[in-house]
């Protein structure tokens, strides 16, 4: 049985080659994602958000570490738990909130909601509410990039639950046969909804891509520096034409499967959650390193955080005040 705990130690050298500015930008991105998600939860509890949302809190290092290694025109596909990917790839929080509230100013004019945010400008092919539903789309974008010679790469984010979907294996086979520049990023947060992944996942996760000839490795999903360093190396390699790659990021979601999943004890212990938050928090780990390396002091980081908070709050405010789409919008965009 694969376990999330026996992960390799952090790539300790990572980060040293990055400018302080870049590192602080990564910090800001992680903090923004967390603040964004806290705001989402708040909008939900205040009954301002229709439906549900799946929060990325606890997993911020993955999206940020990966997306920082990408160019703006590189592609990503995302999941039901997609706000982090979206922000990390460069989407604006105001239009995201607007989408979450079903407003016309949203990325999808209010028609997609939390699970379908898409943004061509930042290369975001879209979140997807079908588990594993985007693995083909990501490979297809990589197919285009290769066919057109654009040197773009495509990153397909998915939760470990998607390992249950046959489509993933069909497409990994294709990606390897055709040497497509696609990177499969598996976010193993240890739960498929309310079921532990060990009850749904036979064998070793990394052996699966490897069986299709796809180079696969894992990384500590709470260490943004390690993720960035690994991603950078993989992205370079994939961009250079070596074909697909697979990266397993071992991580944890702090909150419920979705905002309404509050009583979780029947499927996981509170102590488990507390342990991750206390010992493995990606923002804290990064903070400690930054301050330890004296790249910035706590005051500087607090300031970044405050600025992010102002921005996120303003973005939410924008969305709350924004208009709903007119009723005629319902029949628009069915066909292009």
């Amino acid at each position, binding site marked *: 049985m694969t376990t999330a705990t026996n992960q390799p130690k952090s790539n300790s050298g990572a980060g040293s080659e990055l400018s302080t500015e870049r590192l602080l930008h990564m910090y800001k991105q992680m903090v923004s994602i967390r603040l964004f998600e806290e705001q989402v939860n708040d909008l939900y509890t205040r009954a301002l958000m*229709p439906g549900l949302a799946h929060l990325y809190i606890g997993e911020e290092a993955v999206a940020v570490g990966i997306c920082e290694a990408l160019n703006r025109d590189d592609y990503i596909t995302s999941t039901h738990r997609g706000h982090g990917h979206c922000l990390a790839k460069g989407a604006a929080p105001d239009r995201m909130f607007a989408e979450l509230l079903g407003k016309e100013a949203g990325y999808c004019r209010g028609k*997609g909601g939390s699970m379908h945010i898409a943004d061509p400008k930042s290369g975001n092919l879209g979140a*997807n509410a079908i588990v594993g539903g985007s693995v083909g789309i990501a490979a297809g974008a990589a197919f285009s990039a290769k066919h057109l010679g654009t040197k773009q790469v495509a990153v397909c984010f998915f939760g470990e639950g998607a390992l249950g979907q*046959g489509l993933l294996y069909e497409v990994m086979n294709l990606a390897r046969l055709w040497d497509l520049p696609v990177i499969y990023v598996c976010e193993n947060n240890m739960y498929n909804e309310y079921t532990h992944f060990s009850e749904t*996942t036979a064998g070793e996760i990394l052996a699966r891509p490897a069986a299709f000839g796809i180079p696969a490795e894992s990384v500590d999903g709470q260490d943004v520096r390690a993720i960035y360093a690994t991603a950078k190396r993989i992205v370079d390699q994939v961009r250079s034409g070596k074909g697909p790659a697979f990266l397993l990021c071992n991580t944890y979601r702090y909150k419920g499967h979705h905002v309404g999943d509050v009583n979780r004890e029947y499927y996981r212990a509170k102590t488990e959650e507390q342990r991750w938050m206390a010992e493995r928090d990606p923002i804290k780990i990064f903070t400690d390193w930054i301050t330890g390396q004296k790249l910035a002091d706590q005051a500087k980081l607090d300031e970044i955080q405050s600025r992010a908070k102002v921005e996120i709050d303003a973005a939410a405010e924008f969305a709350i005040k924004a208009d709903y789409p007119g*009723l005629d919008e319902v029949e628009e965009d069915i066909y292009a």
Partner: protein
Amino acid sequence: MPEVAVRELTLGEAVREALAEEMRRDPRVCLIGEDVAEAGTPFKVLSGLVEEFGKSRVIDTPISEAGFTGVAVGAAMTGLRPVVDIMFGDFVTLTMDQMVNQAAKVHYMSGGAWKVPMVMRATLGASRRSAAQHSQSLHAWFSHIPGLKVVLPSTPYDAKGLMKTAIRDENPVIFFEDKMMFKFKGPVPTEEYTIPFGVADIKREGDDITIVATSSMVQVALGAANMLEEIGISAEVVDPRTTWPLDEKTLIESAKKTSRAIVVDEGYERYGVTAEIASVIATGAFYDLDAPVKRIGAMHVPVPFSPHLEDATIPSEQQVFEAARAMCKRT
């Protein structure tokens, strides 16, 4: 309906009670699906079953709709009576080969040698603000396929009786529950009963117009019927309960009696359930109809997220009321 309505259950409870009774009665019945055990599904419909029947009969799966449906087909062929759970009806897309090319055809292709007594539970219905991939009502697809039976309960009473029939049926049955109705209450007797397939239920008698409605649209139709009553129009509401087998006779007779018919269903209107039923009525009651059969299905758009847009895509009481009023020429 039962003689003495002693007890109210929600639709979710009625389904659970049917499953529990059948599992007690027949050790071959087992439940297979995502988060069906301790979680009891996200809708909590199956809560408590794993405690009573254990993990060997209430079986959590990976997120592998095609895979566990295929396993259920094989298990059904070889002595079990599996009930598979598809969390959102939109995910049936992943199971179409197993359901349509395998389950539906095994009995026929083998010249009757093998049979596939399985049930697929799936949800349907929009208005949950879940957007286009979690809001579809795809029952028309299955109704189109010979070898399958398709059930659409509209009340807790029907849900229980039809589920028991589904489990006892020797064929693959798709049982669609509207996820917005799990909390909907209605009388359910404590004594055992089953409801045969292919028998429509007249949910309300009336003389001026027939409203055929399925699943949660039955409540919409009943609401519209109340509104119509206030303006002096007497509407009959007929619930086919199963789209296949379809009780054509009852539908046609009602339309003949009232001479007008509306068909309301939450699937996409085009090439959907309303088309078949409207066509059956238009043919069967041809010489008695005073107006064309009116179809009201979901708007031909992927279901949008934004609440008032979403609501606009689903048939409403007001819409049914207005259509009926126009057909009966009252203003």
